């Protein structure tokens, strides 16, 4: 009997017993749903973490020389936290010293930030991230200026009170107005807006557009940094290998400057995108390790259910088997019929599972800020698993069917 024929027959049988078929394939359905949904969500999270979280907060090929980590994704003990706090902070002269000793081509920017209020007319925008940085900062962060311009090294040198603002600040504080040239107040001093940065979107539901960047030496620096102290020195190179090289040079310079002995640990920290992702990578690895186990359990259960259903089908349809044998079906024909039926049953479960999994991923995407992203390979695996479970579960019942004696089978009720 042709395989296509067997499939047609199998689907006809499945359709004839819809409810029974549905219950028998629910195990496979759940297994595959789980596979698709978890893979999609983890992959989506993964992409989110890499694209948005790490690259937005730190940036590719970029490291920050800091006193201690500022992006903390794991658990930190109190002792560690205390030790971090006792470290010397990064001073201007530290930054200059390191900058002189990095010979790898790189772009630098001093960096300080804190939350401030920005006033315009009678209105106040609270909790605005005010950043003090150098002219290179916009390039390092890949900020696109949609209106006006960024500030120049001369303006940084001259500590001019100018601002480049995020799009949300522009929209909220200066609603319906042309922001360029407007004078806003920070800490009682006027700042002239000279540029607006393109919309950056959100991260975990929080806006990334509520910020203002001013020249590092501008007067409001006292609001965001103690005197002579930096939050970070940002260093960006052209590619990952030069970044590692520059980081090595920076580490050597800092250790020399702080006169650390070889056995002493660094009392400073390099924040990188990879570093910030460390904990997340551990979590996603565990999820991906646990996933096959969870999927396997539901598929084994699903397979056993299907095997039982097929054994029942064989005994219910003994007479049909007898008729088919009398009319010339060989053992292989009967075997193929029931194996294909089992595979088709299981495949239907897998296909429904893929549908449910996609729907689940879509729902997660729609109601949470996490962008679930469907992995095509997980669909392929779902289909392959579905068929394999069906075949594995169908072989034993099918071989029992194929070995039935036609005379006894014809006599069955």
């Amino acid at each position, binding site marked *: *009997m042709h395989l296509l024929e067997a499939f047609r027959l199998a689907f006809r*049988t499945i359709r004839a017993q819809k409810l029974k078929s549905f219950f028998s394939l629910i195990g496979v359905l759940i297994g595959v749903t789980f596979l698709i949904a978890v893979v999609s969500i983890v992959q989506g999270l993964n992409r989110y973490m890499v694209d948005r979280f790490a690259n937005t907060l730190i940036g590719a090929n970029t490291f920050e020389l800091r006193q201690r980590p500022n992006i903390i994704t794991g658990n930190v003990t109190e002792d560690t936290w205390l030790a971090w706090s006792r470290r010397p902070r990064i001073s201007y002269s530290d930054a200059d010293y390191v900058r002189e000793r990095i010979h790898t081509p790189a772009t630098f920017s001093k960096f300080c930030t804190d939350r401030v209020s920005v006033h315009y007319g009678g209105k106040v925008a609270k909790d605005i991230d005010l950043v003090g940085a150098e002219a290179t900062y916009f390039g390092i962060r890949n900020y696109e200026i949609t209106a006006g311009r960024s500030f120049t090294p001369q303006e940084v040198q001259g500590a001019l009170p100018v601002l480049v603002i995020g799009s949300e600040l522009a929209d909220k504080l200066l609603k319906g107005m042309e922001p360029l040239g407007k004078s806003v107040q920070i800490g009682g001093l006027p700042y002239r807006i000279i540029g607006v940065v393109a919309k950056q979107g959100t991260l975990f539901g929080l806006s990334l557009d509520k910020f203002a960047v001013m020249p590092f030496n501008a007067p409001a620096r006292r609001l965001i940094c103690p005197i002579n102290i930096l939050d970070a020195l940002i260093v960006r190179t052209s590619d990952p290998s030069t970044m590692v090289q520059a980081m090595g040079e920076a580490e050597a310079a800092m250790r020399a400057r702080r006169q650390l002995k070889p056995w002493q640990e660094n009392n400073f920290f390099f924040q990188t995108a990879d570093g910030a992702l460390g904990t997340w990578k551990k979590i996603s690895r565990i999820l991906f390790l646990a996933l096959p186990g969870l999927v396997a359990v539901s598929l084994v259960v699903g397979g056993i259910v299907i095997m039982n259903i097929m054994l029942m089908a064989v005994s219910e349809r003994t007479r049909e088997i007898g*008729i*088919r044998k009398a*009319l010339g079906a*060989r053992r292989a024909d009967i075997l193929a019929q029931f194996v294909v039926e089992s595979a088709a049953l299981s495949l239907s479960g897998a296909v429904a599972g893929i549908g449910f999994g996609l729907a689940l991923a879509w729902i997660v995407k729609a109601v949470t800020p996490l962008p679930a992203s469907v992995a095509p390979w997980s669909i392929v695996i779902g289909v392959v698993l579905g068929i394999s479970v069906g075949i594995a579960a169908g072989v034993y019942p099918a071989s029992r069917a194929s070995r039935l004696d036609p*005379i006894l089978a014809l006599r069955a009720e």
Partner: protein
Amino acid sequence: MTSEIIRIRDLTRGYRMGDETILALRGVSLDIRRNEYVAIMGPSGSGKSTMMNLLGCLDTPTGGEYWLNGQEVSRLSDDALARVRNREIGFVFQTFNLLPRATALHNVELPLVYAGVGARERRSRAAAALERVGLAERMHHRPNELSGGQRQRVAIARALINEPSILLADEPTGNLDSVTSEEIMRVFGDLHSAGQTVIMVTHEADIAAHAERVVVLRDGRVETDQLTRGAAA
């Protein structure tokens, strides 16, 4: 080539019951010619059913020879027997044995599926076969939507679809009323007239009377083997 379509020599079939072997057939020899219309009769326990199973290649004998259409079939493997059943034998059963969930058309197609005939040809041949038994209108009905006589006609169409050497009927009227029985017997008679070899196993004498030759079995042996009056005339 002889004109014998069936040649049986000293056929035995024993069943093991514990330590004993019970012989259902104790050496039957029988020749059936092409285009003969034979009824096999006998009381229950005579070996009638065993004979039917052996003739239909559903079972293999423990001794003796069975030649069907020039081929020795008594020593064939299961799969080879399946092929012989498919090509050489058309079954008509007392209980019709149609697939309940399949339409008349699909039931008739079934032997062609196992013969490896393509879907389109199957369909047209099955439709033509149903037309021949007067069921063109009922092609897409399921067995439970058909009367007993119609079901048996579907079964006959199915039995003939592969142009078998023998049409083997097992109590074909056992589940039918007398009017319908007569109707089915007319179909058998017409098939015989058209050249079909028909073998019918029955315990009803008036049904057997439609055949031109009656073989009576008793205790696993042929008791009588004679032509009926109708055939002699």
